[in-house]
């Protein structure tokens, strides 16, 4: 292990002892934290010698003197809204902010709550399930999260519960040299349905390493949106574990716009027959941004299907990585798995890496992947300009054309429109309403 890799765990050791000593929570949770911290000590911070982290530059982070988060007041105006009625939970620096939240009436026995509070009131919904899903075992930031998480959200829907009102979870971070570890636990029992929008944003120089665990029972349907819009100085390492039962459907939208260094690792286990997993990724990276998506879709049962479309728009000296694995186990016959990665370069200095991978151990399957990288078509740009459309609007129209089918997957109209504006603003493009 290199010296740099050892540095962060050493800095954390006293923190963890202090952190753990203060907490009043079930023993099972305390044990989980200790185990996770030990795992982190073994793993260390990732280095570029590790294949999985080869392209991720953590040197910036290692200069920081990481502090625990502090409590700061945040104005409600600083937080995004859905412009729709929503169950809204806001967290500032990893802690629940009731004043910025709005909880609405829920169906019987269903629960949307701060996971910190729910641990006291409903430990039975958390203790048996926290950190139980497979995946991300080798992910140091996921281990740090399990060791240090303070709060986050719990969504529990009993069998057959359909929650139409979107669930909006906002994680706002503000401070400097601070690390936050939000935790999300989503449990949709048999036939339950929910739409969840998770937004990460903030101001200042901080590390955000959230972990989401989503468990879908048979026939459950989850629409999950992750909107990563961290501050331009932030590091974001998010982990998502997803486990799907028979005939369940997961629609996961990963929108990554912010951060200096941002990465999402998603592991989906299709553990019931006929499960479907649709992944829709859209990344915008500019200036010196680095943005990375690592996805592993594991087909463990027959008749499952998965569709992945990941797009990146890059400007300036930005770099992106898409690393996508489709794994089909021997037993998972009749699997249909697709993966597409497309990159649009707006600058000659930007760099997109795509690494699609297949591991197919069953013989009767349909699997395919493809990857393309290209620049804006100068002929198309000229064509638009020759009709009077300004250069910046022409570029906006072409970028929008590239990103449009990703945005169109998002069914909440105000959210989709906000994201289209964000995309345009992020590229300093002239944006005009579509029809």
């Amino acid at each position, binding site marked *: 292990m290199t010296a740099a890799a050892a540095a962060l765990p050493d800095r954390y050791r006293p923190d963890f002892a202090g952190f753990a000593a203060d907490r009043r929570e079930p023993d099972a949770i305390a044990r989980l934290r200790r185990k996770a911290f030990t795992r982190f000590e073994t793993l260390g911070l990732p280095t570029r010698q590790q294949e999985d982290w080869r392209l991720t530059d953590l040197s910036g982070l290692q200069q920081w003197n990481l502090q625990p988060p502090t409590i700061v007041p945040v104005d409600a105006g600083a937080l995004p809204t859905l412009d729709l009625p929503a169950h809204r939970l806001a967290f500032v620096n990893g802690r629940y902010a009731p004043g910025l939240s709005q909880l609405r009436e829920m169906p019987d026995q269903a629960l949307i709550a701060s996971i910190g509070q729910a641990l006291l009131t409903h430990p039975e919904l958390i203790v048996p399930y926290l950190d139980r899903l497979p995946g991300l075992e080798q992910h140091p930031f996921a281990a740090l999260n399990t060791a240090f998480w303070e709060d986050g959200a719990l969504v529990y829907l009993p069998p057959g519960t359909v929650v139409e009102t979107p669930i909006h979870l906002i994680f706002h971070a503000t401070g400097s040299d601070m690390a936050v570890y939000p935790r999300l636990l989503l449990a949709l029992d048999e036939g339950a349905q929910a739409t969840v929008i998770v937004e990460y944003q903030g101001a200042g120089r901080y590390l955000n390493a959230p972990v989401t665990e989503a468990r879908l029972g048979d026939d459950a349907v989850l629409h999950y949106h992750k909107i990563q819009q961290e501050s331009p100085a932030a590091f974001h390492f998010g982990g998502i574990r997803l486990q799907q039962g028979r005939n369940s459907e997961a629609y996961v939208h990963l929108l990554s716009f912010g951060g200096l260094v941002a990465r999402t690792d998603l592991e989906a286990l299709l553990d019931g027959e006929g499960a479907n997993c649709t992944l829709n990724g859209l990344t915008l990276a500019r200036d010196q941004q680095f943005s990375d998506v690592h996805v592993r879709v594991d087909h463990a049962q027959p008749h499952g299907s998965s569709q992945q479309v990941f797009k990146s728009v890059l400007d300036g000296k930005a770099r992106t990585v898409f690393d996508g694995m489709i794994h089909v186990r021997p037993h998972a016959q009749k699997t249909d798995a697709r993966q597409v990665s497309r990159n649009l370069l707006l600058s000659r200095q930007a760099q997109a890496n795509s690494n699609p991978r297949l591991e197919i151990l069953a013989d009767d399957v349909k699997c395919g992947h493809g990857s393309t990288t290209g620049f804006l078509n100068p002929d198309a740009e000229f064509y638009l300009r020759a*009709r009077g459309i300004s250069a910046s609007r022409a570029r906006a*129209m072409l970028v929008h054309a590239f990103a449009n089918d990703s945005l169109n997957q998002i069914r909440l109209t105000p959210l989709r429109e906000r994201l289209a504006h964000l995309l345009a603003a992020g590229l300093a493009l002239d944006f005009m309403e579509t029809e």
Partner: protein
Amino acid sequence: MLEIRNLHATVEGREILNGIDLIVRPGEVHAIMGPNGSGKSTLANVIAGREGYIVTEGEITFDGKNLLEMAPETRACEGLFLAFQYPVEIPGVANLYFLKAAVNAVRKYRGEPSVDAMDFWELIHQRMDLVKMDESMLKRSVNEGFSGGEKKRNEVFQMAVLQPRFAVMDETDSGLDIDALKVVADGVNALRSPERGFLVITHYQRLLDYIVPDQVHVLFNGRIVRSGGKELALELEEQGYALYNEEPGRARRAAA
């Protein structure tokens, strides 16, 4: 309205236009004919302001304004239109959205408010009838999957909607059947007015039966080697360009 003086232009370091002089007055239609590779599209692209076409000498003015100093979109907003020889496919940008963006860009340039939705809808339908275009084309992406003829028709449709003061039509008639040819001609003739000018690039005399030009020019090796009335087109149809392949003296004699 459009004045071209001693225009020299290079593409990728190669001189393609070698001193073109051409004046089109308001209300006039000029035709340009010439063999493949003689520089017709290059001239059209230089007028429209395409990147990569470098003017090394000479000038172009449009209503007295220096055209070469303007960005392509400014030229369009000033009332210039190029019907492309090869219209570009733009997947993901709907035709209707594109047209509205174009109309509003021009209006903004003139200091006018954005077009009223109802007015726009009417304008679109009226022009669609003129070029006999199907409504389904509006929802489709710009030129994507259009047949050759549909692409050309779409160029005329855009021209009819934008109503430019000066239009350069680069082989808009190529690859069209007779009916489509008439549609293109109708599109141009409907716009013809004492204030408007046209530069029609074509290989076929046939088009000029429908769009009767005031003058015909022969472009050869990047120069206008001959100009004349509409009968020049008929002569070219019969004799081809072989004549101009000889030393320039003969071409001049033939012109005399």
